[in-house]
């Protein structure tokens, strides 16, 4: 298993939408390397003939009748939003200038 570099942590942080500071990259690179080294031992026992279990219960799609029920009002749904306008969530620009 490969070790995890500072550059790799920076890449992971971008994927995970975390704007890490430089000192955090060094800090986390060492720690993540240690943790990944320790957890990589799972592959020692994971033979091909062992089926994976993703959940303790067999998951089934649960459907309910498509009835109209009371739900949150727009005001309630928006009440925790950092910014709102005209009964909508107001977000920063999502498209770049180029």
């Amino acid at each position, binding site marked *: 298993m490969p070790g995890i570099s500072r550059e790799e942590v920076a890449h992971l942080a*971008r994927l995970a939408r975390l704007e890490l500071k430089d000192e955090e990259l060094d800090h986390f690179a060492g720690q993540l390397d240690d943790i990944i080294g320790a957890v990589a031992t*799972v592959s020692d026992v994971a033979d091909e003939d062992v089926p994976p279990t993703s959940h*303790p*219960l067999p998951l089934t799609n649960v459907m309910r009748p498509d009835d109209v029920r009371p739900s949150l009002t727009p005001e309630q749904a928006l009440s925790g939003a950092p*910014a709102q306008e005209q009964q909508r969530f107001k977000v920063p620009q999502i498209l770049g200038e180029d």
Partner: protein
Amino acid sequence: MADLTRLTAAETAELIASGGVTAVEVTEAHLARIDAVDEKVHAFLYVDREGALAKAREVDEKRARGERLGPLAGVPVAVKDLFTTEGVTTTVGSKILEGWVPQYDATVVRKLKEADLVILGKTNMDEFAMGSSTENSAYGPTGNPWDLTRVPGGSGGGSSAAITAYEAPLAIGTDTGGSIRQPAAVTGTVGVKPTYGGVSRYGMVAFSSSLDQGGPCARTVLDAALLHSVIAGHDEMDSTSIDQPVPDVVAAARNGDVKGLRVGVVKEFRGEGYQAGVLQRVDETVELLRELGAEVVEVSCPSFTKALAAYYLIAPSECSSNLARFDAMRYGLRVGDDGTRSAEEVTALTREAGFGDEVKRRVMLGTYALSSGYYDAYYGSAQKVRTLITRDFERAFGEVDVLVSPTTPTTAFPIGERADDPMAMYLADLCTIPSNLAGNAAMSVPCGLAPEDGLPVGLQIIAPAMADDRLYRVGAALEAAHQARWGHPLLEEAPSL
């Protein structure tokens, strides 16, 4: 009148029902206790004084009108700050939700209200339930009432500390890798992780959805059972909720008896890294089970040695996905929205400012484990280990009725001791994790004080899924036998605050 905060929940409920005391008096006594000690303990993030007193008045009025009330009516309860509470701040121990006020109640909270319990407030926790010490709370650590310089366990340290410090007789916790049982062990209290799906997860802020389970924290086995029976049961709001009758845990707790019960001692949970005094107390408790008439055998569960590794791939993977919802758009903190930055940049700046170290570590670990090229080696292998652990349990439960082990390898460690060493911190949940991976039921009950440091030791009892009543049967038998031996409940040996 005796100190109302020292009564068990069962005693309090009986006293209220008989008219010996009002719910308001009980609530006021607990609020006064919180005022007196919580500055030192820091079990609570938020105390809902007015809400608690209003509910207590309502209970007293119902009783005066002769209405039929539930078995815990008027009894105070503290709720981990991971459950949404309508109109009451919910932070999950994180800066990213500071000041957030939910618009709805978690199902567990709704059930507490319907059963007329009095919710005192929200308890401290490791941020997003990630941690084993409650040091990762963005609002500062909780102290262990046995020794305030030590951790109360985690992530539900606030809930266990609140009941240990007599600030509440009951509390609600959540257990993803041991966050109810591990704090119970190191505070000398009772903590139960019900069968996965036995208690609704609706309104619990999700960390790792296939592992998270809410459950009761209490000072006695019977109190835990009474609370368990209030919060358990099928919920159509949670698609992972089990639609089967809840086992009669209260009857089991009232009739603790282990005669003829087959008990398996998990061989893999001892050895290097285990404190001598912890093993000594656990061994004595196993001997006690034998004296009480149980048949004790050693059981081997070889895959349990890989449980910690599998957990630290599965839980971070699920958390990296679950925590994507904290994007600074719909609720919570927003940082860097100065009109020049894109939504993506604002999200990254907000998550950097709003998440603590452990959350960032796990989000990145999960992102790594799920990334293309590594998925099979890490996440896929971890899910196979989960299968092996489930098989180990099935094999073991073919031979025995319950399994036992230490709940934690050591007693409570000093605050700060493991803060910079994530792997050392993760070891605190070594014995509790297999039950989360397999979804079965488990409990921690006190089994004495470690001779070397005088701190509480917990015994873990594990039962098959939907056999939660077996935990209570064993726990109640042990509690009665231990207290007969000690002459009093273990908590009476804790220093006064």
